């Protein structure tokens, strides 16, 4: 399968199912790539899968695509591939790939089940940007007959046009569920924090220290929440766990900070606005993942189990 076909499959997945996480679409594309691979050796297969993951990261530079691809590769090669017959090995790898995909598709529902009991009746929730996992959690809370209201930040990037689309997405989706929504300015987070009972955000990536990488503005919200003693909850699937360990904002690699197109075309990255920021684990109360409810310090334990 050529790189263009791979990119086209990936894009098609995102188009056909707008609700799917970009990492899941990437994994589906990689599984298709694996099926059609014409190589004859395991090493060759692994290196072409690595190249495929790189290609996809260049299309969509989010942390999740990178980590999801890496975990997919590790999961399928973790079996004892002792068969001397290459095609048998490949069959096993494809089978494992499908198991991984199935597990990953169920993760959002698992998280929703774990998280919705933390939303009490009459709660006021603050959330940031558009997160499909948070949406699923709030849906689950509505299904269990809870009444609550939500504040959503505008989550401004710099292009004003995008703002409108972004703000419409989350607010629209919530209104469809009949949840009372208020859209607030990013600058109004400090003002609204005293009214809020809990903060619930998604994550683009979860790093080794237990901190998260998410849409820019998340760090500010976390700092305000800590200052006013409000719980700060993060919901993220386990394929977003990545083996990065940023010490501060500067330490996050540039390839995640900016969109893929910007990275390709921009002359001077210091003039571009970053799209993500890093929230340190000391500001996070709990992380809800399909591996269970974790404290930030437990994330490293889970990562060691996943990657070793």
């Amino acid at each position, binding site marked *: 399968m050529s790189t263009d076909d791979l990119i086209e499959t990936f894009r098609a997945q995102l188009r056909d199912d707008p609700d799917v996480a970009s990492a899941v679409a990437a994994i589906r594309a990689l599984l298709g790539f694996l099926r059609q691979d014409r190589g004859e050796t395991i090493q060759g297969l692994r290196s072409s899968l690595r190249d495929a993951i790189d290609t996809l990261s260049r299309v969509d530079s989010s942390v999740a695509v990178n980590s999801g691809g890496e975990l997919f590769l590790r999961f399928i090669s973790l079996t004892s591939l002792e068969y001397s017959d290459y095609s048998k090995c490949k069959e096993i790898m494809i089978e494992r790939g499908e198991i991984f995909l199935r597990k990953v598709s169920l993760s959002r529902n698992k998280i929703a089940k774990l998280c919705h009991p933390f939303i009490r009746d009459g709660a006021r929730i603050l959330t940031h940007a558009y997160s499909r996992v948070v949406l699923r959690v709030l849906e689950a809370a509505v299904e269990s007959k809870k009444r609550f209201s939500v504040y959503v930040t505008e989550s401004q990037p710099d292009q004003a046009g995008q703002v409108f689309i972004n703000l419409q997405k989350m607010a629209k989706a919530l209104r469809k569920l009949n949840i009372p929504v208020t859209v607030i300015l990013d600058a109004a987070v400090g003002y609204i924090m005293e009214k809020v009972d809990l903060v619930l955000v998604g994550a683009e990536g979860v790093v*080794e*220290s*237990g901190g998260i990488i998410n849409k820019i503005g998340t760090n500010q919200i976390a700092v305000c929440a800590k200052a006013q003693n409000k719980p700060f909850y993060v919901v993220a699937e386990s394929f977003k766990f990545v*083996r990065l*360990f940023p*010490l*501060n904002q*500067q*330490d996050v690699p540039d390839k995640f900070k900016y969109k893929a197109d910007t990275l390709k075309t921009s002359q001077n990255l210091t003039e571009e606005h970053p799209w993500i920021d890093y929230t340190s*684990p000391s500001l996070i109360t709990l992380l809800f993942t399909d591996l269970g409810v974790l404290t930030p*310090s437990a994330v*490293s*334990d889970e990562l*060691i189990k996943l990657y*070793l």
Partner: protein
Amino acid sequence: MLFVTVPSPQAKEKLQATIDNYLREKIVLAAEAISKSAFEKINDNDVILVYGCSSLVNRTLCDAHTQTDRTFRVIVVDSRPRLEGRETLRRLVRHGIHCTYVMINAISYVLPEVSKVLLGAHALLANGSVMSRVGTSQIALVSKAYNVPVLVCCETYKFCERVQTDSFVSNELDDPDDLIVQRKGQAQLGGWAENNSLRLLNLVYDVTPPDLVDLVITDLGMIPCTSVPVVLRVKNVDQQ
């Protein structure tokens, strides 16, 4: 594991081989692995603070200087009575690294310009505390106050299953006479033994709590301080 039925000379050979292997993997190669991951954290135009003399830290800095083209400078902090920082200074300057030398009293003065602190450790305790040369916890504390990230380099063989919550329990006492200093021909504390109400305390180690340390670099990768028990668990499973 050696069985009792294995004859003596063979058992000896096997034991020797295992020891050599352990030495090579866990000590020599581990140092290389740690130095490689640690110098990824060193960026261009960094100002790195180091304390005392740690072979791992020295090796990391020297490797980073020779193997990458990043420019950085080092501030070596030293303290009495051991003055181990002088050895670090000697080694780094010989490699051509730009160094500054200060005593530990001056750390609040230099910390605003430091980008990260790199420390060695004598042991990592099961609750994530770092046991290191006396003065280390002071540096970690002041660095936290200035928001400077603290990185500890430590091989996995130094992880131990003991837990200590303060620095007095099972510490070592060094010769109190080392604290006596000669100034202008007069030893200020010279007659301390005769004075009933005076005692000199020369501690060797201290314990840094895990919330002051941002990152531990080991041969298994970069982990937060709180993951030490997980590594110990994995190690125990390996050995069985």
